[in-house]
């Protein structure tokens, strides 16, 4: 029983982390159709900015540093979309072509971002030690709990943003039918750039928190991109709530497998993913 309880609790916490690294990608693909292979690189940027601020003289609290990483990464994302991806959109005859090209372009982006970071921060492992204790009484690591909390907050805030605000509604409308949204007066290009920026900002926030959870190094990005891809496909591409559910599913699967045989964990990820794609290609939440 204790084992099952542990698996569920740690699985949930891990699921929160997985959801955290995935929501941004889900948004980028869901609205903008960019399967951003460089997603993990922006997580890395968030991590290192947080680490840098933490280590600097102001010794900034990692949670507070989100206030810096989020806008910073948002602007990077916005600019990238307004230049690179918009150009690809304009020059691609069909959506399929755009999806392929944007995926490959983001692969180039991966190289660029990662290597700029390597030149700045080197190749060492670092981590921000923050809240590295458990909630008294229960064996729940505080930093993971905070991460779960943040992803829930992001989820709720984002939900409210989508449901209540003018821009949020425009994003939803654009993801369902961009052409008609344009007929309503929505400037699709700016919505897409904002969405891409938001996706990158979410990666930045995830990075801030990850820097308190795991060793960070400038080559860490791809592994998180892969996790995010799996989670996002599990939950259904483009669904933010799907990313949450996909994250939790993967987290619990991961903990069950780790309990029995840790080296099968990754195999289990891919297996779950591959089976789901074959059985339900649109994901758990997909229509």
């Amino acid at each position, binding site marked *: 029983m204790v084992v099952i309880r542990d698996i569920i609790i740690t699985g949930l916490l891990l699921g929160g982390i997985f959801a955290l690294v995935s929501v941004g990608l889900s948004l980028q*693909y869901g609205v903008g*159709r960019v*399967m951003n292979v460089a997603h993990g690189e922006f997580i890395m940027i968030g991590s290192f900015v947080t680490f840098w601020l933490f280590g600097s003289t102001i010794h900034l609290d990692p949670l507070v540093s989100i206030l810096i990483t989020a806008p910073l990464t948002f602007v990077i994302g916005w600019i990238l979309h307004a230049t*690179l991806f918009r*150009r*690809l959109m304009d*020059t691609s005859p069909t959506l*399929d*072509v755009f*999806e*392929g*090209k944007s*995926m*490959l*372009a983001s*692969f*180039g*982006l*991966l*190289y*660029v971002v*990662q*290597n*700029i970071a390597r*030149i700045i921060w080197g190749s060492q492992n670092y981590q921000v030690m923050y809240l590295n204790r458990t909630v008294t009484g229960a064996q729940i690591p505080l930093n993971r709990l905070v991460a779960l909390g943040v992803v829930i907050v992001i989820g709720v805030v984002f939900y409210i943003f989508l449901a209540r605000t003018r821009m949020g509604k425009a994003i939803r409308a654009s993801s369902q039918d961009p052409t008609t949204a344009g007929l309503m007066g929505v400037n699709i290009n700016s919505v897409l750039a904002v969405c891409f920026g938001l996706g990158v900002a979410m990666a930045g926030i995830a990075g801030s928190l990850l820097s308190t959870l795991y060793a960070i190094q400038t080559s860490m990005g*791809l592994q998180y991109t*892969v996790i995010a*891809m*799996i989670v996002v*496909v599990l939950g259904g*591409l483009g669904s933010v709530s799907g990313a949450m559910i996909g994250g939790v599913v993967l987290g619990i699967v991961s903990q069950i497998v780790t309990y029995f045989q840790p*080296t*099968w964990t*990754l*195999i289990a990820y*891919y*297996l779950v*993913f*591959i089976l789901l*794609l*074959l059985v339900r*290609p649109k994901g758990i939440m997909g229509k």
Partner: protein
Amino acid sequence: MNIKRLTPARWAASGLLLVVFIVLSLLPTLTQGYLVTLLTDILRYVVLTVGWMIFSGPTNYMSLATAAFYGVGFYIAAVFNGPLPFVAVIIIAGAVSFVMALVVGALTLRLRGVYFAIFTFALTLMVTSVVLEVERVVTGTRGRFVVTESTQTAYYAMLIVTIVTLVMAVLIRRSRYGLALQSIGQYEEAAAHSGINVVLTKVMVFAASAFVMGMAGAIIATRRTYIDPGIAFSLNTSFWPVLMALFGGMGNLVGPVIGAAVFTYLGELLLTRFPDLYMLIFGVVLILAIAFMPRGIVGLAEQVWGKIRGGRGAPA
């Protein structure tokens, strides 16, 4: 029936091709050393890129499983080279990749667009993890020593596989199956209603492209002394052929060949001249190429040539 289409330009092209192959086949006697190694590597990417193009070019299915098929070939060579003759090993490697692609293709080719790309991507990762775990459990270690072949043996083997790949690519392109593939890529539904067995065609050609990838893997493995799953199934092997094809231009077969050659050589040049900045420059070049050269080097050349000839550029 093709004879009437052999215009003087075609004769010249064929002649040039023949000269190129004669030079390539004589090369190891003319020069010894690194050039042969480099050429083997370039030819490897030509095989992978053209192999990838055979299927993904006309159908627009972006396969990222190249590393899986290539890696399987790699592993076959690690296990069987030595006990079995090299030629047999290459053929077995191709055959195993072929069978694997048949199974994978039958399962996945109903997925379209980005789903297919992600699936093949995950497949490569999964094969890596599984092989790694099998090695750990069965052999108690991670990698294997490979019975090596000499530089020249590998070079000639790769040259032959390259020729096989190119011939296969041309034959498929010219044959009815090339037309079928093209139809599938343009309008899968209409292709089915015109009597094309869409599933079988896709799966067979997918498998055929995996065949040459497996062979290329087996040859390169014998140049590596020691291999492990991380080496055999490097993700770069999946992405690079796609980028090379895009870089060279996907319109015809010349594009991927040029793309692979230029890409590999350029990479080498940057890698040795600017080891610190190499990947950064590479990434920038890649992005610029995708954004500004939608039809690759060949497309660009055609456009420039068109402008020179009479101000009328190739249609955009």
